């Protein structure tokens, strides 16, 4: 793959390195280095393989775990709801029959696929990663090209290790400056989506750049890339650097010895070249950001904590007006209402966006020595068994439980309410997850998306507050 000396972006380098074939008038055949699968979107793909008599082409590049439907309170599968148990048993059977490594809930390693992949070192810079889950964009934090696919495409990758893909356009999002106290990665990405719209990234791959991004930990970078899809982009990427390499070194699936040195030398070449151009650009001044809260039913409907819900008159676009009216009707909120003080019935700390150890440490820092407000149901769902064990080793579980939080097993849980963790109709959920769609966290549930710091503060006060006043 020659580039004729033309400066290229991070995305273009990874894309170019994976084009297997490109026929005239057809999309590219793109090679997939790593395929992650889970119990909900894979069974129909395996059924297709069986129907057509196909094998999994590269079981060694395919990794499975169970996260979406699994209960977080009960590990004994015989006590599970029949449908969740059936999906998990089907995944076990498929992994056994096709020779795929499975990180089973019965074993020492398991959790949300986008938490487990990075912590095992399966997620590596410069690779292509797919999964039948839209939050696969998370892995772009390592400089991988990672995106969600449908079940038909899961079947294509199982059978051929390739996908037919039309090349997306590039979109640079540059974040510069120092974040204020109490302002986190979650607030950066919620602000980007509020600015650029829930569909502003359609057809693009985001590259997050600038001094603020470079200063973030891997967990925080994952939080940002995770929600690229909420901004309409299938993928978001961050150039790998010393922070990336330090995170990966020594992880079980990371290269070792001489292979490590060779890999790092290659990874260092991936950053966007000086002079490379993007199809679109957006600049964010990090010094002006505040903690963010969503008030509506799409992730673009968010404002700073000191702000208020817009009024219909303030919006020019008829579609946005319609969205606002229907969102406020569903949410039971008023035009022009300040977001500080919004009611909170339930607090959910978890999800592939914010369930890593750094997220739990932040929330625990607020909760320590305080109590969950009367009438609030608060749960913490660690992203993986490893996160849970680490948190327990640090005593975070005790901090949460003493404050009145429930401390659960690893999984997706109330982010999408596939298991028993559901918010009731009309309940307001201060949630660290990624989607505030109608009914996402349970039929009739009303989601208010925010950072772990803000969600912890909301748990203590029983309403949305400015966490900066508690720091």
């Amino acid at each position, binding site marked *: 793959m020659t580039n004729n000396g033309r400066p290229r972006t991070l995305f273009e380098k990874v894309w170019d390195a994976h084009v*297997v074939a490109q026929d005239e*008038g057809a999309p590219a055949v793109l090679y997939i280095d790593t395929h992650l699968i889970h119990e909900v979107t894979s069974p129909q793909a395996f059924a297709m393989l069986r129907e057509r008599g196909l094998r999994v082409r590269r079981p060694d590049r395919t990794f499975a775990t169970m996260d979406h439907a699994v209960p977080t309170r009960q590990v004994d599968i015989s006590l599970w709801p029949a449908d969740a148990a059936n999906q998990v048993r089907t995944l076990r059977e498929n992994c056994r029959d096709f020779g795929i490594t499975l990180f089973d809930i019965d074993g020492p390693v398991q959790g949300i696929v986008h938490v487990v992949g990075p912590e095992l070192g399966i997620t590596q810079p410069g690779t292509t990663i797919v999964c039948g889950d839209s939050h696969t964009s998370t892995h772009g934090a390592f400089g991988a090209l990672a995106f969600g696919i449908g079940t038909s495409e899961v079947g294509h990758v199982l059978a051929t290790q*390739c996908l037919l893909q039309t090349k997306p356009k590039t979109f640079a999002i540059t974040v510069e400056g120092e974040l204020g106290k109490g302002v986190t990665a979650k607030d950066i990405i919620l602000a980007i989506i509020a600015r650029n719209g829930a569909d502003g990234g*359609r057809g693009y791959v985001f590259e997050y750049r600038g001094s603020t991004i470079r200063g973030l930990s891997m967990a925080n970078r994952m939080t940002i890339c995770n929600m690229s899809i909420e901004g309409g982009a299938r993928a978001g990427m961050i150039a790998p650097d010393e922070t990336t390499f330090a995170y990966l070194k020594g992880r079980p699936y990371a290269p070792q010895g001489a292979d490590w040195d060779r890999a790092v030398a290659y990874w260092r070449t991936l950053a966007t070249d000086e002079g490379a151009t993007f199809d679109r650009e957006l600049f964010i001044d990090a010094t002006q950001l505040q903690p963010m809260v969503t008030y509506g039913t*799409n992730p673009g409907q968010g404002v700073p904590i000191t702000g208020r819900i817009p009024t219909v008159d303030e919006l020019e676009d008829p579609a946005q007006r319609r969205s606002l009216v229907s969102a406020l009707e569903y949410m039971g909120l008023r035009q022009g209402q300040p977001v500080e003080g919004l009611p909170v019935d339930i607090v959910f700390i978890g999800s592939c966006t914010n369930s890593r150890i750094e997220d739990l440490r932040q929330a625990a820092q607020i909760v320590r020595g305080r109590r969950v407000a009367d009438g609030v149901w608060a749960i913490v769902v660690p992203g993986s068994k490893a996160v849970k064990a680490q948190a327990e080793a640090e005593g975070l579980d005790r901090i949460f439980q003493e404050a009145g939080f429930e401390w659960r097993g690893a999984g997706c849980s109330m982010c999408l309410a596939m298991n028993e963790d559901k918010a009731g109709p009309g309940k307001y959920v201060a949630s660290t997850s990624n989607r505030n769609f*109608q*009914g996402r966290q349970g039929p009739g549930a009303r989601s208010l998306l925010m950072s772990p710091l803000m969600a912890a503060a909301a748990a203590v006060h029983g309403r949305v507050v400015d966490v900066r006043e508690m720091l």
Partner: protein
Amino acid sequence: MQPFTTLTATAVPLRAENVDTDQIIPARYLTAVTRAGMGEGLFALWRYRPDGSLNPDFVLNDPRFAGAQILVAGRNFGSGSSREHAVWALTEYGFRAVISPGFADIFYNNALKNGLLPITLPEATVSALWDLLEAEPASLIHVDLAAQTVTLPTGEQAAFAIDPYRKHCLLHGLDDLGYLLSKEPEIAAYEARQPLALVHA
């Protein structure tokens, strides 16, 4: 995959933007291990009341739109989750095409792989179509994939864009897998030359 050539059908006006895949089919309907049965969960939160009865206020339950095979929705249709179940739910219910000013990328791809034609038309055309369908629910819309046109009930024609490869597959009912399997020699050659740094330890 069922081929898509032309379609003449009535249409349902769904006056909503950002219809995400959780609305199209809520997560609790995703617990099956087969494709069948998803039609029941289509728009479940809007179609059914909490007691499970049909919600008469939701447009899909309006008997005037029964049998419609085209859905006309606002921008950013199919955003959110990658669940292909959303497409299976739409096709099992009987939809063959969705018209919107814009589709989320993953949904758009999933639709094409199941013979559901996503048609992108300008916001103003969609808005006019809503008015027209609400006034005249029996209006017929004609879609011609080969010509890439939609003939509106007014007789006006609107052109839409589609990738030539995707169009070819839809017209002939082909899926990607056959094409990808035919690339086996190129795939093997690629693997043989792939940089070691891209191979797992």
